[in-house]
């Protein structure tokens, strides 16, 4: 049987709405299991604008779609499944980030950036990352509990790591941190939020201009240097690339830090095992990435040609959400997928960093950050505990990247 998004639905019932809510922070939305079993490639309506999209839920199919050269990441293509409102005029103006480019533009920019994120380069960043983590934990311990782990640790660590990466001068770090935290603060008024976004954009613009005349030992300077011969980007593209590092690497890592700590606090036996044997940490991190799959619908595409996925033909121009949280709970790959198990053998097969040509370029960096944070907390703050009732915690149910707003802890 084949069907397409504009064919009449068999039952005439209205389409399910997307996004769907997670029933509990440690599980996928309740609808996913049924979809994976009965209707693995199915249609839904986007809450933000009522437009139809395909939802892909099986591990095998998510890999297939994200590995298919006939799908596009270009958010300007009609049919792209937008998850927040962007006015048409604004969309036309948007400068595409690498995340939303297709080959050959995507490949050209990605090739300029991958040397910055190799396994070796990331290993070299480890000591500095450890220092950042230790400084933050020193400050936390000096202040005394209870503290909000999100503001004390989860937000500053990845923000400072991106400062290092981009070569933000040391004296600007506090300001940079304040703006990038403001961009993630959902309690700000639209005006305050807008002001932070603008201030940060202006700052990045200034930073790129500075690097054009006074290059340093950093990603932006090396990008500019290579660009002199490769000529793939203009000034605005470089500013946009710098912003992508922040968009891609800040809130994601921050949310994983806080959720991961929460998960360990809620699974004390597994936390004790990690305390006793830190060598278990790398696999535990893969399992936490799998269980939370915080960027579930970040892997959005639009078909550039007709493609077959399972029994379904997705027509050119139709939107696709290749749901990595659904894939990461596929029982055919992850038996007992709803259970957190730091020893899970197949944990690394998760798709929380995506798959295919856009697979997270910062994945190995994120792994090192998570290992430094979790490892240091387990070692230096062994008495860490929640300072709130679990049911008082507020989760980012409607956000593009899943997380927890505050995580009060003490020790």
């Amino acid at each position: 049987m084949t069907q397409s998004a504009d064919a009449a639905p068999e039952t005439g019932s209205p389409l399910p709405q997307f996004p769907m809510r997670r029933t509990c922070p440690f599980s996928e939305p309740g609808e996913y299991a049924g979809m994976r079993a009965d209707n693995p490639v199915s249609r839904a309506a986007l809450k933000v604008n009522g437009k139809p999209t395909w939802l892909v839920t099986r591990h095998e199919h998510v890999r297939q779609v994200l590995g298919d050269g006939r799908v596009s990441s270009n958010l300007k293509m009609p049919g792209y499944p937008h998850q927040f409102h962007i006015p048409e005029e604004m969309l036309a103006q948007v400068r595409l980030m690498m995340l939303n480019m297709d080959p050959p533009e995507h490949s050209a920019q990605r090739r300029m950036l991958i040397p910055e994120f190799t396994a070796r380069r990331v290993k070299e960043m480890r000591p500095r990352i450890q220092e950042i983590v230790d400084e933050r934990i020193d400050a936390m311990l000096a202040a005394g509990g209870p503290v909000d782990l999100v503001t004390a640790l989860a937000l500053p660590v990845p923000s400072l790591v991106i400062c290092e990466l981009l070569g933000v001068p040391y004296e600007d770090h506090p300001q940079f941190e304040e703006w990038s935290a403001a961009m993630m603060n959902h309690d700000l008024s639209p005006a305050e939020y807008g002001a932070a976004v603008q201030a940060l954009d202006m700052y990045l613009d200034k930073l790129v201009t500075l690097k054009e005349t006074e290059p340093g030992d950093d990603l932006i300077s090396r990008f500019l240097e290579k660009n002199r011969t490769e000529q793939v980007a203009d000034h605005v593209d470089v500013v946009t690339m710098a912003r992508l590092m922040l968009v891609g690497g800040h809130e994601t890592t921050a949310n994983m830090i806080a959720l991961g700590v929460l998960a360990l606090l809620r699974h004390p036996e597994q936390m004790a095992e990690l305390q006793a044997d830190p060598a278990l940490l790398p696999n535990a991190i893969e399992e936490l990435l799998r269980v939370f799959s915080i960027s579930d619908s970040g892997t959005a595409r639009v078909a550039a040609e007709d493609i077959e996925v399972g029994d379904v033909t997705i027509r050119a121009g139709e939107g696709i959400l290749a749901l990595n949280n659904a894939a990461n709970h596929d029982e055919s790959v992850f038996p007992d997928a709803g259970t957190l198990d730091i020893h899970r053998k197949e944990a690394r097969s998760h798709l929380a960093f995506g798959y295919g040509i856009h697979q997270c370029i910062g994945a190995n960096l994120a792994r090192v950050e998570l290992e430094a944070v979790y490892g240091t907390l387990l070692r230096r703050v062994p008495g860490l505990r929640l300072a709130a009732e679990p049911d008082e915690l507020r989760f980012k149910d409607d956000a593009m990247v899943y997380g927890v707003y505050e995580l009060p802890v003490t020790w």
Partner: protein
Amino acid sequence: MTADPIGVPLMRVTTERDRCVGSGQCAMLSPEVFDQDDEGLVTVLQEEPADELREGVLQAADLCPSRSIRVHG
């Protein structure tokens, strides 16, 4: 096909650099066999890795997001 001294056929690893997207999954998972060069693209350190490295190599091949790694034998 090459064989080790007792005649067990070795596996052979090849990569397609043109496809590689430099995610470094392979170099992280199986650093004895895979590395990334100055451009961040995959290079093979041992084309015929010993059998005890098989599991890591097969996993790297499976997890490579651009299917750039082939294992023969």
